[in-house]
Structures are given as C-alpha cells and as structure tokens.
C-alpha cells in the first residue's frame, strides 16, 4: 500500500505538472481539492485519465469519482480494491 501511494503521488505530480512539489509534501489524507494541493475541476478530469491510463480503471459515475479523488489514501484504496477484484 505504501509503495502504491508513493507511486500515485509521483504520477499526480507528473500528470498535473506540480512544480516544486515532492511526493513527501503530499499528505496521504490531505484533501486534493480546495485545501491541500488546491486542485480544480480540470485536474479532476486529469486524475480520472491517470487512473484509466495507469491502472486501467474507468470511473463512470461522477459521484463515485468525487469520493475516490478525495485524497491519495482514497485513491490508493480504490485502486487496491479494483486490483483485488
């Protein structure tokens, strides 16, 4: 799980071009939107694409996406659950 979260943080930084941000700067449980990283709605679309490209997971329901993209922790848990399934 820790390895997955680290990888996810690296992928988020690269995909969103978060200059001057390092994986260790991102708290596992910090909100990705609003506070925390301060991402916006376009970023959420990019994170959906990230999940599809890197983990072959397509999030169809936007309401589900809101829950999944709350934090790195929730994203990692979602990926893990899909991989187990």
């Amino acid at each position, binding site marked *: 799980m820790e390895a997955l979260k680290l990888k996810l943080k690296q992928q988020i930084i690269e995909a*969103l*071009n*978060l*200059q001057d941000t390092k994986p260790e700067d991102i708290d596992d449980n910090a909100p990705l939107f609003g506070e925390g990283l*301060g991402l916006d709605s*376009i970023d959420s679309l*990019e994170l959906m*694409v990230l999940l599809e*490209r890197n983990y072959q997971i397509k999030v169809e329901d936007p309401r589900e996406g809101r829950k999944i993209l709350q934090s790195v922790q929730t994203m990692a848990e979602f990926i893990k659950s899909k991989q187990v399934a």
Partner: protein
Amino acid sequence: MKAKCYIKGYAAISPQESFSGGFAPHLLTLEGKNMMHVKEPDYSGFIPPNSLRRMSRVLKMGLTAALQCLRNSNAKIPGAIITGTGRGSLQDTEKFLHNIREYSETALNPTPFIQSTYNSVNGLIALQQQCTEYNNTFVHRGFSFEHAVLDSMMQLAEGNATEVLAGAFDEITDEHFYIKSRIGYWKKELTQPAELLESATGGSIAGEGAAFFLFTSQPSDICLEGIKMLYKPSEEEVQQALQNFLSSHDLAGEEIDLLVSGRNGDARYAQFYDNVERQIPDAKVFYFKPYCGEYDTAGAFGLWAAIKEMEQWPANNAVIYNNFYGEQHTFMLLRKVV
C-alpha cells in the same frame, strides 16, 4: 481604412531581449537547425502558479506579453481583445494528437485539447483581467495579425471601444519545423541570421514570438494610419497598391523615412521586396526577420520593431511591408505625432 488608431503601449516576447522594453538588435548564432526560439521571461510575476503549471509555452508567452502591454499602457480592462495566430498552441495540438494515437482514442487528457484551440490566449487574458468586452481571434495564416489590426481599427472607428488590446502569438516546435520543411518553408542548408539576407536559395529561418499593442482613439506619440492587405497579387499589383495606399494618405514614396521590411532571405519572393525598396527610395531600411525568424504572425514583431525604430530614430513616416511566402502581402503606415 483611415480611422485614427494611436499606439499607447506595447510589449513583445521574441528571440531578442525585447520583453524589458529595449531593443538592441542582436543576430543569434544558430546550431543544427534553421530555427530560433524566443527568450522567455519569468512568467511567475504575471500568472498564478496554479494556472502556470497547466499552460503550454505559447499560452504563457501570449498571456504574459498581453499583460505586460497592459501594464506598460497603464490599462487594466481594454474595450476589446483581438488577436491573430497562424498556428495556435502547436505543442498542445501535437500532444493531443499523439495521445489519440498512443491510447487508441481513449483516456484522452482534456487540457491539451482545451488549450489547443486558437482562442485560448484570448480567453485567458479575458479571465485574468475580468474583461467581458468584445473578444475575437483571427486565424488566417499570414494575415492573422493583420486582420486583428484591421478589426481593432474598425472597433475604434465605429466607437465600439476607445482602447483595444491587439496582438499575435505563434510558436515553433521540432515537429512543425519538420512538416513545414517538407514544403520548402526553411532553408535546407544551415543559414545564420547574419547571412540570411544574402542567401540566394529558397526558404527562410523558422521563428516565433508574441507581441501585443494597446490601440486607442486618444492621441498618442505614434499613429497607425492605415493597413492594406493583398492576397496572391502579382508584382505589378503590389506596386500599384503601394502607390495607391501612400497617395490615399497624401504621401509619396520619397516622403517615407523608414521602411521596415519583412525580407526573409527567400530568393523566390525577393522581387517583391526589391520593388518596394525602389518605390520608397530615400528611406532607411530595417529588416526585421533576421531578428525574429519567419512565422505567420511575424508582422506583429515588425510593427513592434517599427515603433522602437521610430522612437530611437527621427522618422516621421514609416511603412512596414511584409509578405508571407508570396501569398499574403501587407502594408502598414505609421506616423509620428508631433
């Protein structure tokens, strides 16, 4: 078009040290390719970090040049934002097309698509300045900037605006350089800007840049008196058009002090420039393409360079002549207001 259009402020990002506002023409030394890139300024003083991280190069160039122009003009919200671009954000277009291929038309990232649209820069300027006025982008290859100028003059003439932010932006990428090299846009042999105008072969050096102007109906130091565009004219038609253009402003060729020429070293179209120089025999000639390269909206850098030359040199009347690969020809007339 005879409406008075004064130039209140301007800014340019180019292969020259132009962003600071000065202009000491410097011929670059090219390595490997006939391609020159702009000297990018520090964008952080203009664009919030959260927006900056998402923008591609030409968007940053265009937005920053526009904002610097407004700062230089002590203006905030213009009455219209009008731009021209021949290619828009090539970097984003290429990224999006590559993604389509790489991911078999699935999992496409929205950002490059959004930003690849030609009017992205205009939208960003409007958003950042909270400007809800007239907003238009012209995409007409070598006439893109020129149509933005014409539209600006019409907006001022009709009283729709008293200040118009007008500009142009284009970038060059390795991929676009390659594509255009196949249709003879660039010289096959490595050619230095210092040798460009002596070249006897076809093609030119690729360039890029962003330049913005604040046009106003209120009198200022320099007036853009008129613009004339010709599409695929013959040599005789260009000569006749220049004569008519000057006489419509009560001028003869001998009264022009400064000719700012878009001669680009392409031997296939040199005759047009030769003819214009013969018709304006007493003018000091400044060739701007060795300093910015050739691109669809290089005419915007030409206008910027003409203003800088007029500021530094006692020229009362200046003509800018540019043509884009022999197809789109433009004359602009500048007059110093005394």
